C-alpha cells in the first residue's frame, strides 16, 4: 500500500532519514537511537501497525544493528538503529510495544546489548546461569563455536 509508505516517508523526513525499498513490499528505514522512540510511536500509534514480528541483531563490524520488523497486511517495515560495540546501550520500546520484552532479552543475551528501560534487562534468557562473564556474547562474529565449547567444557569427540 503506497499510502502507508508515503506516510512513512514523511515521518522519516521528520527524523532526518529516508525510506529504502527492498524487493516485494518491504521497506527499511534507518533511524538514529535518539529519534527511535518517536519514530516507533508514529508507526504504532499513527499508522496503526501494531504487530511487531521480532527484533534482530546484526554484527556490522564496528556497530551493532538492531532491526525491528513490523508488519501490516502486505507491507513489511524494517526499522534499524545502530549502537557502537564499545558502548552497547540501546533504548527500549517496551512501553510502546509490550510484546517486545522477550525479544529484547534475547538480544541482550546473544549480542550483549543492554536495553535501558526494559524491566527485565538484567535477567538471562537463553544463556545458562554459569556462562563465564569474560566470554563474549555468542552471536558476535568474533565468537567462535569451538571456543565456546571449550570454555563450557562441552568438547565434541572427533570421529
Amino acid at each position, binding site marked *: 500500500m503506497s499510502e502507508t509508505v508515503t506516510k512513512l516517508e514523511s515521518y522519516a523526513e521528520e527524523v532526518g532519514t529516508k525510506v529504502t525499498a527492498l524487493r516485494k513490499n518491504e521497506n527499511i528505514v534507518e533511524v538514529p537511537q535518539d529519534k527511535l522512540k518517536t519514530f516507533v510511536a508514529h508507526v504504532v500509534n499513527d499508522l496503526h501497525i501494531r504487530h511487531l*514480528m521480532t527484533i534482530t541483531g546484526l554484527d556490522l563490524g564496528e556497530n551493532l544493528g538492531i532491526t525491528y520488523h513490523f508488519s501490516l497486511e502486505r507491507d513489511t517495515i524494517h526499522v534499524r538503529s545502530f549502537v557502537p560495540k564499545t558502548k552497547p546501550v540501546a533504548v527500549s520500546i517496551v512501553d510502546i510495544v509490550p510484546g517486545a520484552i522477550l525479544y529484547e*532479552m534475547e538480544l541482550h543475551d546473544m549480542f550483549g546489548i543492554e536495553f535501558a528501560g526494559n524491566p527485565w534487562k538484567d535477567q*538471562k534468557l537463553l544463556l545458562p546461569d554459569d556462562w563465564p562473564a569474560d566470554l563474549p556474547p555468542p552471536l558476535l562474529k568474533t565468537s567462535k563455536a569451538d571456543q565456546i565449547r571449550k570454555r563450557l567444557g562441552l568438547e565434541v569427540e572427533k570421529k
Partner: protein
Amino acid sequence: MSTSPEQQRREESAGLMEYSTESLVPFGPIHPALKEPEYFKLVLEGERIVNVIPRIGYVHRGLEKAAESRPWVQNMYMFERTCGICSFVHSLCYGQAVEELTLFQVPKRAKYIRTIIAEMERIHSHLLWVGLMGHWAGFDTLFMWVWNDREVVLDLVEAISGNRVHKSMNAFCGVRRDMPENMKDRIVERMKFLTDRARYYREVIDTEETMLVRTENIGRVSQDTAEKLCAVGPMARYVGLRQDVRLNDPYAAYDEVPLDIVTTTEGDVHALLRLRLDELVASANIVSYAVENLPDGPIRVKVPPVIPAGEHSSHCEAPRGEIFYYVKSSGGRTPERVKSRQPTMANLPTALEMLKGQTLADIPIVLTAIDPCFGCMDRMSFYDTETNRRWTWSGEELRQYGVNHYFPDRSKKQRGFTKAIDSSINRRQRESI
C-alpha cells in the same frame, strides 16, 4: 509505607522469582512420549495462580550461529529440523526469504504442491493437538481415536515425500519431488474422511461432559492484551483478531485457493478447540481444491549456489502461528545472518497472562492450549505464599492432580491407582518442607 507481615512475605516471594529464560529455538515434539524440558515457577495463593515465571532455553541449539558457517542449501535441512511438526513450513519460510534475493520465479505447480503439503501438515498438527488436549483433560479415549485418524494424513505424506515427519520437499525456487501419479482420487477421498471425523470430534467436544468441564471459561485473555503482546496464530484468532498470514500477506498459492479464516469471540480454551477443528476442515477443503486444480509445468528452477547480496525477510503461517525468517547475504556461499522466530516465542507473554487467575488443576490444559512447541511440563516447582511451602511435581503427577480435582468419583480401580500417586505426592511434600 507500612506493610503487614503477610504483605511483606508476598512481596518477598515475588522478588524471589527471577523472570528468566526463553527459548530462541523452541522445537516441537516429534513423538508424544518425548516430553521436552522446560521449567515453570508458579506463585500461588491457595489454589489460584498469581504469577508465572517460565524458564526455558533447555533445547537451545545455536542454530543461528551454525547457519552462518553452512552453505545455503544445507541450512534448509538444518532449519527443517527446528521442529518436527512444522518442519515443512520452516524450510518453506527460509526458502522464500532466500528466493527473493535470487530474482528467480517459483513455478506455479511448485506453489500448489507447497500449499498442499503445508495444509496437510496443518491437519496433522491440529489432530495431534486435539489428541493431546484429550490426554491432559483425562479423556484418553479421545486421544487414541484422534491419533488413529492422524495416521491417515501421515500415510498420505509418506506416499508423497517419502518420510512422515521431515518431508525434505522444499528446494530453492521449487519442490524436489512431484506429486505421484494417480494420487488425486485417494487424496480427495481421504480428505473427505478427515472432514467427517473432524465434524464428529466437534460434536464430541461440544457435548462430552469431560471436555466441557475442563475447558469452558478457562484461559481467558482480552483482545486488547493479545494484540498488545503481539500474539500470533490461533492465539490471536480465538479472541477475535482476524490475523492470519495466509490472508493478510498471501504466499505460495494461497491467493488462488478458497481460504476460510476461522475466528471466535469467546476467548476460552473450548473456543480454541472449536477453532482448530474448524481450521482442520478448512485445510482439508484447500487440499482437495488444490489437488483437483493442480496446474501443469515444471516443479523447480535450478538456483546457483551463490546467492546475491542483500537482505530479505519472509513470514508464513505455521500450524501454531506466524513464523518469521530474516536472511542477510553478503554475496557468498554461506549466509551472513539468519534469524528465525518461532510462534511459541511470540505467544509466550500471552500464555502467561492466560495462566494468571487459574487454578493449579488447569495448568496442563492452559499450557497445552497454546500448542506450545516446547512440549509438556517436565518439572514444575510450586511455591505457596500462604503456607510458605515449596514442592516439585512431574508432569504426570500434575495431570493426575487435575483429573482427580475435576472428576473425584472415578472408578474404584482408577482411584486405587491415583491413590498411589497421591501418596507419593504427599510423601514428597512432607519431605520438602
